[in-house]
């Protein structure tokens, strides 16, 4: 079974019946038919009444679903708390229900506007909706009962809609199934949503209309069921047999073209060698190719030179530097979120250690699952270590003279020691975001509106992390260690303490560090419900979409989640990383936003994500396998130049989409383009610490020379759980920076810069200089017109140097420079 089908199986476990044909004889007709006239049939609160409220909009956030309620009446958002909703409707100071004279109930008077209603008219007074509500009221307005069969799954027909022309429509039919085997057509009780209303719309009755060319998904929601349906309208008539022959040298390409063939989108041609080299160097290693590298690559006639170049790049330190930066993004490496208190002044160094630890593993190509396990199971003090030895180990990393090698540590604990992860819920949110690409934030307070997660799921997931905290070590030893040092009488939170702590560390004094407390998973006591006690309730840890974990005894309560993640069958772990890596190369993820894996947000090409995730798992989480597979594909190597069919395509991989370079890569590109040949060699050999992509922490507003620039260019501070912190959007001040900032002039004119190098060497051949300027900025040779314009400018200038300086300035300021094409 493929990863994707597993993912879908997981989804469908709650959403779909085996087999797609719906046996009509057993399916109850929709309520819109049954309640056309007033009938006696008693509607079910959970099956009919609450979904009807959803359909009428009553429990939306702007209305009674708001956390404050509205007009003194509050419903759970989108209706998932059936008991509370029933209590709100039937109880309280102003019951919305009048059992003696049902027609006088506020829940029918208000939405029909028989009484004033701020939310306006919601309910036609003579329709099936009214009849259904009245039947429920007349039968005593009973709530959900324990013996009610649980909702099991949702099935939608058709599974895919391919439209022929604009304005075509298709009607969805949604069948719900309950645990007792009963089935009902719930189409009129569903919420529907289109993921892109410029392609297709869907109305409340489930009628989908083609309004634009391209593809998207419409999603049906009912109870806890969420089912996306692929919808497409071909962009041209070049579909199926009429589709031109397009080479598909790799499996990846086959899967991409299979979808393009349906859509009638023809891929662009393959990009030029110069474009390929620049693109892959920037994407894979965050680095602009050097001028001589471009020339050598263009001159080479080896048929496999692109493949060789990919291997060469994967072996470079710049590859490890860039991906250590990306992994630092995903996992939240930031000096700004380190712990407060005595060790606070070490937070910048700790961020550096975090980066180095990741860098080492990327460089050595340690399997991704192993790397992540080293973070997810990060520990402070080993079980065989005394507190004094632990503190001794910690200070060894901060010694001024020959500090110990932090990157050699088995695990990296700083993910867990961040002050933003002080609470168990925060740990669960960060964990799900960093390693699973799942956003649980909504479920923290209410049923996730477009995923299966309930508040209960969230609470049970957090139970794995209960008790994990960064806090003081053993009290007596801590006090003893401080005794006789200047820290003895100081308050740990005072500035004095923090300063002295750092100074003493540098001198090698053993000082008390805080430590990461990791509880063992708890064995259920006889007669007790197994689980973790949270706020007076016992919660059984439960994997997301998986099993409850009971009776297990692990020395580390986090172990079962990590084992689950690393299992080949895990629906999220590999996909989340594959999708994020994909987003690095194509600008958008196959699932986008890349850190939002949820049921209502299906991948644009499920088979492709499947293939890559399965391959990644099969390769034993070999990150280089993934980079190689993507960059060697024809799809990655397509030209950005559009044709008539793919001009507007930005999501189906029919051409290279123009992307602004990431913040650090832009800054580095300016540094590299203006560097002398010698300086360039140094920067390539040892990017860590010297290059912007080799800087450890998230954006921190420090005094580093690149700080202002990377802030403007959207370097993420890495303080929240969102990949969106990194911004590659253009902005005015970015342009102002490149045009006219003293920092840029300083780089142009620096003593170790290229302009100084050619002045010193008295190079005066303008043609050669112009070529060099083009190679080191745009990684290509100028065409005739460009060379002519540049030459004219230089010959009009007061001397060659100043003319060349202006040319280099101009090239750095072209869109082509700051864009990956």
């Amino acid at each position, binding site marked *: 079974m493929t990863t994707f089908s597993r993912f879908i199986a997981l989804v469908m476990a709650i959403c779909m019946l085996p087999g797609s044909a719906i046996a009509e004889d057993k399916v109850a007709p929709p309520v819109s038919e049954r309640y056309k006239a007033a009938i006696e049939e008693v509607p079910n609160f959970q099956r009919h009444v609450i979904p009807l409220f959803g359909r009428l909009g009553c429990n*939306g*956030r*702007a209305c009674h679903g708001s956390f404050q309620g509205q007009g003194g009446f509050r419903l759970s958002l989108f209706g998932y708390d059936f008991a509370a909703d029933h209590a709100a409707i039937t109880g309280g100071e102003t019951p919305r229900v009048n059992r003696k004279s049902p027609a006088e109930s506020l829940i029918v008077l208000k939405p029909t506007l028989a009484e004033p209603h701020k939310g306006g008219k919601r309910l036609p007074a003579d329709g099936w909706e009214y009849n259904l509500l009245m039947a429920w009221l007349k039968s005593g307005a009973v709530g959900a009962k324990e013996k009610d069969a649980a909702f099991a799954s949702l099935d939608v027909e058709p599974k895919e809609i391919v439209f022929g022309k604009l304005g075509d429509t298709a009607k969805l039919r949604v069948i719900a199934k309950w645990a007792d085997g009963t089935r009902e057509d719930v189409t009129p009780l569903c919420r529907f949503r289109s993921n892109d*209303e410029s392609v297709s719309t869907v109305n409340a009755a489930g009628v989908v209309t083609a309004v634009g060319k391209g593809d998207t998904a419409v999603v049906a929601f009912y109870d806890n069921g969420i089912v996306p349906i692929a919808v497409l309208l071909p962009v041209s008539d070049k579909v199926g047999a009429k589709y031109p022959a397009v080479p598909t040298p790799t499996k990846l390409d086959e899967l991409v073209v299979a979808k393009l063939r349906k859509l009638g989108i023809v891929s662009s041609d393959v990009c030029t060698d110069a474009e390929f080299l620049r693109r892959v160097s920037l994407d894979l290693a965050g680095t602009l190719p050097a001028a001589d590298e471009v020339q050598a690559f263009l001159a080479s006639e080896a048929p496999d030179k692109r493949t060789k170049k990919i291997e060469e790049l994967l072996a470079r330190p710049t590859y490890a530097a860039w991906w250590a930066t990306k992994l630092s993004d995903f996992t939240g490496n930031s000096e700004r979120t380190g712990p407060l208190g005595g060790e606070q002044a070490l937070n910048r160094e700790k961020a550096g250690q975090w980066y180095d630890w990741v860098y080492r593993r990327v460089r050595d190509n340690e399997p991704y699952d192993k790397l992540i396990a080293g973070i997810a199971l990060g520990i402070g003090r080993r079980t065989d270590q005394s507190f004094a030895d632990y503190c001794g180990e910690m200070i060894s990393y901060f010694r001024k003279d020959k500090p110990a090698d932090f990157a050699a540590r088995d695990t990296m604990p700083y993910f867990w020691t961040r002050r933003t992860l002080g609470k168990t819920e925060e740990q669960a949110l960060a964990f799900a975001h960093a390693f699973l690409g799942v*956003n649980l934030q909504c479920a923290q307070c209410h049923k996730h509106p477009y995923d299966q997660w309930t508040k209960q799921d969230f609470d049970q997931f957090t139970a794995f992390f209960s008790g994990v905290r960064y806090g003081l070590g053993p009290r007596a030893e801590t006090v003893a260690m401080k005794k006789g040092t200047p820290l003895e009488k100081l308050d740990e939170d005072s500035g004095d303490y923090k300063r002295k702590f750092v100074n003493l560390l540098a001198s090698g004094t053993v000082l008390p560090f805080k430590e990461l407390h990791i509880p063992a998973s708890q064995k259920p006591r006889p007669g007790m419900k197994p689980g973790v006690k949270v706020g007076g309730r016992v919660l059984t840890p439960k994997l997301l979409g998986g099993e409850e974990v009971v009776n297990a005894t692990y020395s580390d309560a986090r172990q079962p989640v990590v084992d689950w993640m690393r299992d080949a069958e895990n629906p999220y772990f590999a996909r989340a990383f594959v999708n994020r890596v994909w987003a690095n190369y194509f600008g958008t993820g196959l699932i986008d936003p890349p850190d939002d894996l949820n049921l209502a947000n299906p991948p644009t090409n499920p088979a492709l994500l499947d293939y890559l995730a399965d391959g990644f798992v099969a390769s034993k989480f070999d990150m280089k396998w993934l980079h190689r597979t993507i960059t060697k594909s024809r799809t990655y190597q397509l030209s950005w130049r559009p044709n008539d069919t793919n001009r507007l395509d930005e999501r189906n991989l029919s051409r290279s989409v123009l992307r602004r370079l990431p913040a650090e890569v832009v800054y580095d590109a300016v540094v590299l383009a203006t560097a002398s040949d010698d300086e360039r060699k140094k920067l390539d050999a040892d990017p860590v610490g010297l290059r912007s992509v080799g800087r450890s922490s998230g954006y921190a507003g420090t005094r580093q020379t690149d700080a202002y620039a990377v802030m403007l260019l959207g370097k993420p501070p890495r303080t*929240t759980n969102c990949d969106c912190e990194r911004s590659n959007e253009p902005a005015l*001040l970015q342009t*102002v920076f490149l045009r006219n900032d003293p920092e840029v002039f300083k780089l142009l004119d620096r003593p170790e810069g290229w302009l100084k190098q050619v002045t010193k060497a008295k190079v005066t051949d303008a043609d050669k200089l112009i070529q060099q300027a083009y190679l080191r900025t745009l990684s290509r040779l100028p065409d005739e017109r460009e060379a002519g314009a540049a030459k004219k400018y230089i010959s009009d200038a007061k001397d060659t140097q100043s003319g060349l300086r202006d040319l280099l*300035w*101009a090239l750095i300021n072209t869109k082509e420079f700051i864009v990956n094409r």
Partner: protein
Amino acid sequence: MIPQRFCDGITRRDFVRVGALGAGFGLADFLRLSHAADAKPAKATSAVVVYLGGGPSHIDTFDPKPDAPAEFRGEFKPIDTNVPGVQICEHLPKLAKIADTYAIVRGVSHSIAAHELGTEYLSAGNRPIPSLVFPGYGAVVSKELAGDKELPHFVAIPSTAQKAGYLGVRYAPLQTSDVPKPGIPFSVRGITLGNGLTVTEFEKRNNLLSELDTTFKGVAADSKLIDGMDKFAQQAFDMIRSSKARAAFDVSSEKPAIAKPFGEGRFGMSCLLALRLIAAGVRFVTVSFSGWDTHANNFKSLQGGLLPQLDTGLSALLAGLKEQGLLDTTTVYVVGEFGRTPKVNEKAGRDHWPRAMTALLAGGGVKGGQVVGATDAKGAGPAAEAFTPDQLAASFYHTLGIDHRKEYHTATGRPVMIVREGSVIRPLFG
């Protein structure tokens, strides 16, 4: 593109559609309606936030406690201001003479005693939370109020803790990185033409750029990225070429009569620059003035530098705005991250004290010459009603006609009001 999804499952398009059909309205609309009686025409179109980093002592500035025991009262005496009954610290004589131009908010109170988090709180008016970075005042103002195309909309002198947060890099500040020195032309990054470059030379160089920047010609119509970059290129060119921005930043060209009251100190010069920028049409300027973290030698530091500088710079700024007829349309908001301990410590210092602090608000329709709120006898906490940083922020936005209950959406789709917990402090507006 996939429309932005919100935590409540509504897409941005849904909002538009729902609104268009009149079938419903948002929470913010509801709040706006239910508070409709509050609405008052805003007066201000620009703002200056003076940030006193480190947290100034409230007792030793605008909330003196002459009747408290000596270890609380401190070394300074109060003086009368030009508003009967209102006294401030004796080392703020110039501000005392124009107390009718500003309102003092006493008894502001919160519970964050750490600099960084406190600063985050007071820079955005929302208590910091781990899952979201809130945009600072400058980012919100530049989003809400359209500015002059030839000028930056948000200038920080020399830098600021305010962030663009979830609003994104478009609303990031131009940081001057330095403050002007008296009589010396001020070079500001990005605006001043570097290395003695003339406008003509810049134009010439820019022509070369236009000539060479043609690779993506023809795709601008289909690419939001290229189109956006082209628009910013034009705007950047206008801004750099125009004399307007350069002139505004060039403090050395200020008439001596106007410049003199600002003195020659860093803070005074920063205030002069702020005045020039506001006069030129910049929407939002923030001046950072730090050094208020007086754990030791509080009185010496205050008397010897901090208070005289604040007195000179701020009084000149307020007077300058007033003279140029800009005070009605410019809100000035002065605040730090917290107050300081009422009791003097053994190093003659005062420590962090968020339970009581003071803020000043002036201009933009704020009724000057009044004290709003009060602290108890020793300045340890609010005497009665406590004001929050959120309320200060809400009131600040109110002066600019920005409804602090307006909802933005974060990149993850979460709906967030500009100020989540605040309400406008009504007495400020008389």
